[in-house]
């Protein structure tokens, strides 16, 4: 009944939207962003809502009907061109959909507006190619040519490019109204995360943790195109946390702690939550004695001025490259009879964390990955790894798992360097009260190479040189899974496995179906409770982008982009897989 009413209302409003030009569609206001879930037909924010639930309220596609899902339309994008270190671009975009118009990006930063109202094809309304300097930016991108999507603001589109720029675009025409240089590839900074817009400020951060940057978050005032604020993720002298950089040589100035995934936001607390990347150099922890705050952490920050409210560090003095940039979904739950506002995180280090989002205190944590060997658990009071020793400047964790100057070849440890879960987003179904974590199940070892200093600190390393202090070494196959976990305890309730690590992330829906894509092009639907596979389609091209759902003219669609770049060696059975750059949409 409820769904029929919604569908009826949708049909009327979408017919109206069809009659109007996109310029006359309602402006994207702060109020609409806060209430994004009240527009189930649209996918207005990067993570669907500010809480990063990636949960569509649409339910025409459900556990009974999903078997009838068929392809509605597909469209080819550009962006597969080579540049810098990469033989092709990569598609990791989460599409935004507003009133039958879809906004997608390719890895080199072109933005495409697609009219998807017909339900049978995507008409390209416009394309804005920012003319990214591919060689320059692509040479300092650590892990592929990426652009994870756009944001909407008023009657404009906000986008970014790998070469460090942010753009404001006319939503109707695709005209670039202004651009602002935010990141500086000359020092290894690139931008890949979709911006988070809160009121009139677009927040983004810098990737480059493998190139000796000092990470930051930056607010752009969208009314003026000028900087509103900038906050470094590594505290400077006099700021709390600076004392955790004990080298005495100002190594914090090249200490990494990058940001490359869109934060979550709580309007009531007016706080955003952002995951922060690994310390640099990644694999030479002796270079940077101390806990290295706020690398491998979450920061709670004010969107108006960028002030840090609190931080929580997952892996102090991280020797494993357990970069914790991925999303931090917000949930409210009753714990021991008390209503709690929580921030959660499926961490790259293999543990699932639950924190109080008002103050950052540790609530719960549990291993979600099959095999975790670098720590034996988390301290139930502090959330610190049990082997963490605050008296040590260079952490050892479980013996042998760290590569360091005393022992440059580490033993095999799990999860792998790329983590139990990397950037690919989780999803949360509030009806079933389940969090879905996409995982990579496997192990590797590390090889330390003593890192030289940057030239500005008396060494030999130039800006834009890699600054990793070693590398990872494969140790067997890495497979993957989708895991349904209790969002408060982290207890795993169901698992769906596949032969590759998951790099697409998950979509949850009110039809109690979840969707995920895989490297071999399999796009699968699972029962939200049991994770039993209900439907699959092979796109013929690997999927590394998160699926979304929207409706137009009262009909529900599911969309996913396909177009992979393989970091490192391809899985042997995908050896001859070519890349592509496509968007696929399915309907009943």
């Amino acid at each position, binding site marked *: 009944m409820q769904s029929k009413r919604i569908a009826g209302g949708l049909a009327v409003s979408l017919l109206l939207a069809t009659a109007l030009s996109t310029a006359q569609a309602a402006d994207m206001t702060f109020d609409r962003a806060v209430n994004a879930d009240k527009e189930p037909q649209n996918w207005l924010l990067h993570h669907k809502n500010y809480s990063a639930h990636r949960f569509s309220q649409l339910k025409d596609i459900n556990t009974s009907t999903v078997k009838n899902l068929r392809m509605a339309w597909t469209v080819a994008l550009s962006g597969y061109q*080579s540049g*810098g*270190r*990469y*033989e092709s671009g990569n598609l990791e975009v989460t599409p935004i959909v507003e009133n039958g118009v879809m906004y997608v990006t390719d890895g080199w930063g072109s933005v495409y507006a697609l009219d998807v109202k017909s339900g049978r094809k995507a008409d390209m309304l416009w394309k804005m190619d920012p003319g990214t*300097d*591919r*060689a*320059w930016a692509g*040479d300092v991108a*650590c*892990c592929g040519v990426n652009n994870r999507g756009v944001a909407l603001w008023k009657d404009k589109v906000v986008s970014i490019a790998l070469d460090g720029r942010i753009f404001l675009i006319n939503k109707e025409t695709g005209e670039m109204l202004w651009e602002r240089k935010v990141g500086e*590839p*000359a020092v290894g900074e690139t931008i890949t995360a979709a911006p988070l817009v809160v009121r009139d400020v677009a927040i983004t951060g810098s990737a480059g943790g*493998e190139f000796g940057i000092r990470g930051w978050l930056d607010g752009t005032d969208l009314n003026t195109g000028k900087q509103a604020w900038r906050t470094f993720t590594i505290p400077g002298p006099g700021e709390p946390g600076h004392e955790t950089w004990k080298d005495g040589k100002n190594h914090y100035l090249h200490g990494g702690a990058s940001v490359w995934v869109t934060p979550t936001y709580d309007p009531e607390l007016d706080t955003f939550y952002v995951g922060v990347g690994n310390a640099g150099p*990644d694999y030479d922890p002796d270079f940077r004695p101390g806990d290295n705050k706020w690398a491998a952490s979450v920061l709670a920050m004010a969107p108006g001025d960028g002030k840090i409210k609190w931080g929580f560090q997952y892996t102090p003095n991280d020797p494993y490259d357990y970069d914790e940039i991925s999303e931090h979904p917000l949930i409210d739950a009753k714990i021991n009879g008390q209503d709690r506002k929580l921030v959660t995180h499926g961490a790259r280090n293999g543990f699932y964390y639950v924190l109080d989002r008002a103050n950052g205190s540790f609530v719960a944590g549990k291993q979600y990955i099959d095999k975790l060997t670098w720590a034996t658990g988390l301290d139930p009071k502090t959330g610190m790894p049990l082997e963490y020793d605050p008296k040590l400047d260079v952490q050892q964790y479980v013996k042998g798992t760290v590569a360091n100057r005393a022992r440059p070849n580490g033993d095999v440890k799990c999860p792998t360097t790329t983590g139990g879960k990397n950037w690919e987003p989780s999803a949360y179904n509030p009806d079933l009260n389940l969090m879905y974590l996409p995982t990579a199940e496997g192990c590797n070892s590390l*090889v330390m*190479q003593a890192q030289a200093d940057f030239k500005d600190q008396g060494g030999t390393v*130039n*800006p*834009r*040189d*890699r600054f*990793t*202090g*070693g*590398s*990872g*070494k*494969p*140790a*067997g196959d890495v497979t993957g899974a989708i895991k349904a976990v209790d969002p408060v305890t982290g207890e795993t309730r169901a698992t769906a496995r596949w032969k590759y690590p998951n790099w697409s992330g998950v979509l949850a829906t009110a039809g109690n179906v979840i969707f995920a894509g895989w490297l071999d092009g399999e796009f699968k639907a699972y029962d939200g409770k049991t994770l039993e596979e209900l439907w699959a389609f092979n796109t013929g091209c690997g999927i590394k982008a998160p699926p979304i759902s929207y409706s137009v003219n009262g009909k529900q669609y599911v969309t996913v982009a396909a177009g992979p770049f*393989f*970091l*490192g*060696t*391809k899985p*042997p059975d995908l*050896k001859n897989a070519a890349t592509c750059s496509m968007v696929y949409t399915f309907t009943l």
Partner: protein
Amino acid sequence: MKKLYGFMFAAAAAFALTVSSASAQTPAPTESAADLREIEYGKDIFKTKANCQFCHKWDGSGDQGYGGNALPLRTTELTLEQFVETVKCGRIGTGMPYHDRFAYNDKRCYDTTREELGNDTPPIANEYLQPREIAAVAKYVFARQKGRGVKGSYEDCLDFWGKESKQCEQFK
């Protein structure tokens, strides 16, 4: 095959003798039009198809990180023949991949097979290369990288990336 490698070795040796003090991008007087064409072809493979630069860096100065600890090619002590063998067969126990599709199916590489090596088998390259492609990439490395200092110059950079990018400004 062997003949080709022998020819290449001789050509590279001759080349090395004649260009040791020449600027990097300036073709040696002994480079024929056919040589230059093969060197350009090798550069393209190094840059894009085999993507050697991902691990070894665009100038072959070596690098570290997600590609593994990749050795500097500019200071390699390998002969051309050994270099070709390394591209073809990879390096056992390291991240250097093999580019000959049949490398460890028979004993053509280091007189061993995948079965004998087990986990020490080098990784498979993302793109296999034919013998003429391996020869070209080796020729490029020996003509434009090996023996020309530990890092590429501004001119080397322009030769590799072209003039339209900011990529080379830092080397001015």
